[in-house]
């Protein structure tokens, strides 16, 4: 089960993920990111504190945006990953390719 909330702040939007991302629901994650972009928002936080699991289908969604974000100067920062979930990013070296922070404060700082 995956629940995604889109919370709008003055200068950015937060996507709050709760549950598990796998091949059955990764399109929902993709759709949520796309709908934030469609609103013209270029600063996105991903609150992953309640994300319990992510498979390659979910990682692939984040990776598929990396190039576009770089070209268009769009920033997406993930924060609050549980250690077990963070280690999945580490296996593929995604911790080096993506902006990942421990706390919300650090993540907001990274958006600037």
């Amino acid at each position, binding site marked *: 089960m995956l629940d995604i909330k889109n919370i709008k702040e003055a200068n950015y939007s937060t996507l709050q993920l709760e549950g598990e991302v796998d091949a059955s629901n990764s399109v929902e994650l993709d759709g949520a990111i796309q709908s934030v972009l469609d609103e013209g928002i270029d600063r996105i936080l991903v609150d992953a504190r309640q994300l319990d699991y992510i*498979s390659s289908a979910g990682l692939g969604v984040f990776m598929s945006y990396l190039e576009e974000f770089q070209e268009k100067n769009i920033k997406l920062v993930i924060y609050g990953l549980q250690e077990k979930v963070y280690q999945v990013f580490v296996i593929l070296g995604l911790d080096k390719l993506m902006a990942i922070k421990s706390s919300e404060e650090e993540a907001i700082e990274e958006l600037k």
Partner: protein
Amino acid sequence: MNKELRLYCDTDQLAHLRQFLDSRLKETSLSEVDSLQVILAVEEVCANLIIHSHECNPSEYIELNVNNNGNSLIFEIKDYGRGFNILEYQEPNITHVIKAKRKGGLGIMLVKRIMDKIEFESNGTKNICRLFKNVVSK
């Protein structure tokens, strides 16, 4: 420990697979981080078969058998279909995955980095993929 699961070819079944694996792994000495990775690796192989070899046809199924021989956890994944030889699969370069904006290609990379040994055999109709993870018995 010798437990079997029949998994129908629908991605909605993956959550069920994770629950099954989670309860099996609770009987081992694996840490929470390692358990999640082992679950992930088995799921990646199963998801790959469900989606690519069986085109998410829910009337078809794959079989998973979990064994612990004292040194290794052995996950045997059996399917009847086109077959996917994980050992012959060429890992994409991660920068190519990003450039091509591909959403796939990462799963097998995870399996190869998480598991300690992988075997594949096929007789043309029945395919068996075995994933080994070294463990210390409780």
